[in-house]
């Protein structure tokens, strides 16, 4: 699965997520990716999210919208993503990750799997990581 979130010069937010599924998946099975609020969500008033990970778990907690919900309650993107991913792990034993940008331009990349390749560009600065804490 791949995804992107962005904020443009006008302050507009967007998200996109795309996947080829899981090897040997049941024919017709659909995971979280194309489901609004699970594979992604964007609202100029709050933030934009793209998710990745175990699709059925992400669907059960509507991960993208849950992260947005925590941000609506005042959490930073990092804290909102951590809280939502922990909830998913505790409630449905699912692992995954998310990239998030807030309407104020704060961003984060968080995951509970072993790894997640991520990169960001802000000004002239490229940030990137693969393992937890990077």
């Amino acid at each position, binding site marked *: *699965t791949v995804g*992107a979130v*962005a904020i443009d010069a006008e302050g507009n937010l967007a998200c*996109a997520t795309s996947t*080829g599924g899981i090897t040997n998946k049941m024919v017709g099975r659909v995971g979280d990716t194309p489901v609004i609020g699970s594979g992604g969500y964007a609202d100029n008033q709050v933030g*934009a999210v793209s998710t*990745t990970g175990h699709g059925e778990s992400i669907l059960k907690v509507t991960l993208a919208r849950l992260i947005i919900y925590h941000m609506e309650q005042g959490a930073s993107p990092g804290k909102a993503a951590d809280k939502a991913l922990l909830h998913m792990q505790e409630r449905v034993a699912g692992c995954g990750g998310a990239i998030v940008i807030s309407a104020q331009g704060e961003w984060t*990349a968080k995951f509970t*799997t072993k790894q*997640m390749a991520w990169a960001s560009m802000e000004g002239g600065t490229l940030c990137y990581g693969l393992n937890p804490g990077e």
Partner: protein
Amino acid sequence: MKPIIVIHGGAWAIPERLVEGSMTGVKRAAREGFALLESGASAVDAVEAAVRILEDDPVFDAGHGAVLNADGDVELDAIIMDGKTLAAGAICCVKNVSNPVTLARSVMEKTDHVMLSGAGANQFAASLGIEEVSTEELVTQHAREEWGQYKYSDAVSNLFNMEAAHD
């Protein structure tokens, strides 16, 4: 507002053979998506362009690089959402399309709907003149070999560090 773009290439246990390619791919998508934003493009344009780069890169499980389902076929899913209007477009179980994210954007901008699935989504792609690509073109040799070897539940637990499989 200062433009920003953030990219992911999937959260899982990334095999060593894919680590370098994954990092190269996400960095390239971030740079090119950001260049668009700096030139005045919209956030929607930037996320679509960035995801297309990753869909065209066989290192990633999306578009070219997709894995095979139980029938040995490809089924692709994608979503795009515009935070300004809350407009969204999605497609699922689409076959033989290079860039599912662009088809999802067409659902958002050219229909009254949010999601199209399977044969209907492919029919919509054909009506837009989107060129079909063969399954062979979308799938890597490694994905074929993996399909032959993997037991389903093992695949899920190995990839996502967990015991549960699908429901």
